[in-house]
């Protein structure tokens, strides 16, 4: 067993690291879905845009300014997307909002295509995170170690935020019952904006970690991680933050094991197979609350 772990340490480490990055994206999905009942297809692309902003920022300014700038810019982008593309459709059918999300995703990808000229952009190396480190015979980048730790810290902060702050309580109330919380005097728009801000902030952190590891950004870079993060969110039970994080780690690790087994053709399909199995067997996910459909 120990021997097996030792030879496959690299897969595991990498899986955990990817899982952490998926987790940071998945939280954005799960929170937005919790509040708005919307699969925010554009979330993966926000993640990609964060990567591009970092690339352009570092060509003009030092690292210690560009990193906060990336975080701020991504948050602003998320806020604006909600404002421009989702808020006008608040009373429209759910399908229209989802189509709007797909439209935003299309727009962001095409803008990225335009600005990059369709060429892969090389992500700058962030000093500490890009260094190599050897753990138990497996050499990897520092970021691999940092990712799960940072993810867990951020998740704990987020959970505390949701539990003890006023805005956190409001978010929980809105995700429980949209109309009732409105009646209770909660400012729905503010809560939704806050959800997007938090989700995008975490996506920006995720993009810093992800692209430090895999240092090239293309317009479709966000699509696959985005979808996988969504699968993770469903797997963990949509609306549940610990669920999303655990789901993301499971998907990240499984994906790397599958690649290790030589089934690379199916490394992306696996996530979807897992999703379908979960939807069939336990549609609410492993941590989701049982919901009853109201007529």
């Amino acid at each position, binding site marked *: 067993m120990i021997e097996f772990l030792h030879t496959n340490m690299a897969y595991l480490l990498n899986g955990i690291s990817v899982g952490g990055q998926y987790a940071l994206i998945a939280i954005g999905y799960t929170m937005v879905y919790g509040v708005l009942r919307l699969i925010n297809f554009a979330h993966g692309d926000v993640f990609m845009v964060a990567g591009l902003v970092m690339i352009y920022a570092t060509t003009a300014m030092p690292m210690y300014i560009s990193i906060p700038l990336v975080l701020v810019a991504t948050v602003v982008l998320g806020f604006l997307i909600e404002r421009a593309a989702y808020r006008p459709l608040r009373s429209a059918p759910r399908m229209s909002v989802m189509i709007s999300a797909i439209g935003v995703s299309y727009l962001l990808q095409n803008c990225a295509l335009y600005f990059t*000229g369709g060429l*892969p952009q090389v992500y700058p190396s962030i000093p500490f995170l890009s260094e190599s480190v050897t753990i138990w015979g497996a050499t990897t980048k520092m970021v691999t170690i940092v990712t799960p730790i940072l993810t867990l810290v951020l998740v704990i902060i987020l959970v505390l935020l949701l539990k003890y702050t006023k805005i956190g309580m409001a978010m929980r109330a809105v995700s429980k019952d949209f109309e009732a919380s409105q009646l209770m005097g909660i400012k729905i728009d503010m809560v939704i904006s806050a959800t997007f801000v938090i989700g995008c902030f975490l996506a920006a952190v995720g993009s810093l970690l992800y692209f430090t590891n895999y240092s090239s950004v293309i317009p479709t870079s966000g699509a696959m991680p985005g979808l996988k993060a969504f699968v993770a969110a469903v797997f963990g039970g949509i609306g549940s933050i610990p669920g999303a994080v655990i789901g993301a780690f499971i998907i990240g690790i499984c994906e790397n094991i599958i690649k290790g087994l030589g089934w690379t053709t199916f490394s992306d399909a696996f996530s979807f197979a897992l999703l379908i199995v979960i939807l069939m067997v336990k549609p609410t996910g492993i941590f989701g609350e049982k919901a009853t459909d109201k007529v």
Partner: protein
Amino acid sequence: MKKFLALILVLAMLMAFGLCGCGTAPADNGGDTAEGGDSAGAPAGDTVYIGVYEPQSGDNGSGGKQEILGMQYANSLTPTVDIGGTTYNVELVYADNESANDKAVSAANKLISAGCSVCLGSYGSGVSMAAADTFEAAGIPIIGVSCTNVLVTDGNEIYYRICFTDPDQGTIDANLVHSMGYNNVYCLAMLGEDYGQGLVNYFVAAAEDLGMTVTQDQFPEGNSDFTSYLTNAKNAGAEVIFAPCSTGYAQLIIQQAAAQGLTVPLVAGDTWDSGVISDACVAANGANEVYCSTFYANGSNPEFEDGIREWINGDSTNLANNGGTDELAATTVLGYDAYYVALEALKAAGSTDPAAVWEALPGVTYDGVTGNIAFNDTGDADRHQAFIKNFDAESGTLVFYDLIEF
């Protein structure tokens, strides 16, 4: 609301018809073609259009742009051609195939409707194969520049090619690995990419004949996480990694191999001969030795190289299209030769009619920078030499390593 709807509809229709009207007229005088603005100042006269069917975005975008640079440079040196006693201005018409086989047909149609007499391209074999039938139906001949897959010309009579092919290249690479004394190879190519998969195929065949152990793996399109694949290579005990893939993926492989401390040599085909690769090697501190087989060795023709370097450095767009360096990729040089082969074909045809050019092409010969070009029965150039380049940490570029005659 309805008013708006109607208004938009009407506007859309008006615009559509307006563009229809305008679209027909300027397409004939090159409405779609300007890039770089050198066509604006050309003297009035007859114009012959040469289609440039190359990827300018997507995975192979940077490679395609480098190939176009060669054609543009050639065009800037020789902007006119004498066809049947008349001097024509040569204008390049560009179509971006987005490195995607499903976009190939519409890109080809753009060139066909622009009235091209002959087309050049493409970087990447898959897109070339995907467009072959469309060009064939329109009867416009196309000259492949650096698409090495056999199936590009085999069975596609309209396609000619000026570079060597995968069976040769795969064997050369396998022999290279063998001659370096390695016996265990890990092959990695992109799933569904005809160039990489085709090359790996011939490499494996040759390597197994030489008694080497080969492990094959594929990564899906858009993949950016190569750590698992590199771990696979490590666990397979690979002494060399053979990874013919586009430069974007190559960057990631070089960088992640270095980060993982996997310092085995990396070997690849002609795509890796690019400034992008040497930059990635520099960034990775040259942790891995890098070898690639290619069409042209820098330093063979200093006069030509100085000229094109100066031209690239003289324009910021060109410099950006070459990946920000003035390091010359072999595909650029091939693009340069391809342009002159097209001119020779036009001259031999004595007409701008595509059918005449097609008829004339088999007999065309041209003594280019990359060697003599003459076509055989399948439409491939008779090439009997290839170059091996490797990364030189001192100069930070890919330099000549070996010349292979076959």
